[in-house]
């Protein structure tokens, strides 16, 4: 089947860049020219015809096809092998629970955090080690960038257009992390969320910027996690009291203390759920006394239940650091986990 997108001819690579920049089709950085061959290679890898409907954005009724996702993935620097991750992440983002329109249009300015799990991480060379939340490797860099370019070009999520972010954050260029599954005894995030270990999966979350913590002065799980919980309390005080999906990024040094004490991710989530909560009256301490009103004694937990905490093993081997990643706006958007290559609307197998 032929690609159906309009084509443009450009004399040289500089002309390609100016064509895309001048049309508002980039994130400001140079793009890889999306030629028919490169786009077709992505579709072939995913075994999809160009007009395969990936979904219809629920609020504005915009149809998203595999061809358009592939064009933007190529522009972001994706190789064909990266494309199934982009497809799956977008399928996840178009689930009602994710509330893509609200999350990407909001003045709150969140980004889409993508967490990779399963064997595909190794196939792609996606690293959950050094610099895990930064420019750790090619795969996570281009996958995260593809998510944003697709939003810009397919949903018109451009600053000042659909994207009404007051500030945004650097994760809006690319925000993808692979979990370090080899160097941990924990279940992966995807397994925690019901995906078999043998499958590869992506989790998408409407996420604020990471808030880094440090505690190198203890080996006790309760004390380590108290520091994480304190950062979540700070977010509840300074940003939003809405409960929802928070992510905890735990690098190896702190992880080893937790694992040595036989704490599972579920244990961690249970503890943090108890500790990450504030009284409404605390808002008066941070300049928000006007909204305390007569509800000062009300308690606001960061999560409604422990399973809203996404615990991710990632980060370089040394350093007593960690990070919390807060939600865009509590439960207005829910994290979605989806297996790569799974059919989301197929008939269930007959018994």
């Amino acid at each position, binding site marked *: 089947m032929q690609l159906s997108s309009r*084509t443009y001819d450009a004399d040289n690579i500089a002309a390609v860049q100016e064509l895309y920049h001048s049309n508002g089709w980039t994130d400001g950085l140079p793009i890889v020219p*999306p*030629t028919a061959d490169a786009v077709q290679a992505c579709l072939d890898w995913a075994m999809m015809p160009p007009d395969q409907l990936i979904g219809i954005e629920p609020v504005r009724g915009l149809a998203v096809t595999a061809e*358009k996702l592939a064009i933007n993935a190529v522009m972001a620097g994706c190789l064909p092998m990266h494309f199934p991750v982009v497809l799956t992440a977008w399928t996840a983002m178009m689930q009602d629970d994710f509330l893509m329109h609200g999350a990407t249009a909001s003045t709150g300015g969140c980004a889409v955090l993508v967490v990779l799990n399963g064997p595909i991480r190794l196939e792609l060379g996606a690293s959950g080690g050094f610099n895990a939340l930064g420019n750790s490797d090619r795969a996570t860099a281009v996958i995260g960038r593809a998510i944003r370019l697709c939003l810009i*070009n397919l949903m018109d999520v451009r600053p000042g257009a659909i994207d009404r972010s007051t500030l945004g954050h650097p994760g809006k260029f690319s925000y993808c992390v692979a979990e370090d599954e080899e160097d941990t005894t924990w279940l992966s995030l995807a397994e925690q969320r019901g995906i078999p270990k043998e499958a590869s999966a992506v989790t998408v979350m409407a996420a604020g910027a990471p808030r880094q913590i440090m505690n190198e002065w203890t080996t006790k799980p309760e004390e380590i996690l108290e520091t994480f919980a304190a950062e979540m309390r700070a977010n509840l005080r300074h940003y939003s009291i809405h409960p929802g999906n928070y992510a905890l990024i735990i690098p190896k040094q702190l992880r080893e203390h937790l694992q040595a004490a036989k704490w599972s991710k579920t244990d961690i989530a249970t503890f943090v759920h108890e500790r990450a909560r504030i009284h409404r009256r605390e808002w008066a301490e941070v300049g928000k006394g006007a909204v305390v009103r007569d509800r000062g004694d009300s308690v606001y937990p960061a999560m409604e239940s422990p399973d809203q905490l996404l615990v991710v093993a990632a980060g370089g081997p040394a350093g007593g650091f960690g990070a919390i990643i807060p939600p865009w706006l509590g439960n207005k*958007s829910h994290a979605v986990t989806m297996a790569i290559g799974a059919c989301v609307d197929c008939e269930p197998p007959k018994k």
Partner: protein
Amino acid sequence: MTFRVLDPTPEKAPPAGQLAPRLDTLEGKTVGFISNGKEGTKGFFGHLDRLLREEHGVAKVVMRTKSNYSAPADAHIVAEIKTWDAVISGIGD
């Protein structure tokens, strides 16, 4: 070296909504407000309510607030729109 490159945008416009017939007058009409519930909407819609009734003779103003300010209006609010002559929706950030 020349490049033949592809358009990354949908090219087709999304399904367009259709404008309702315009009203000749606001006199005696029912006007609905759909608020997203944010702080700024209170003053804005309050002022608009007075303006419409006192200066334009609007008979009735119905105020509705979405349950989630980041999501489309709730189905029961949308269903109610057909009983109004006009609707005003504001962002209110």
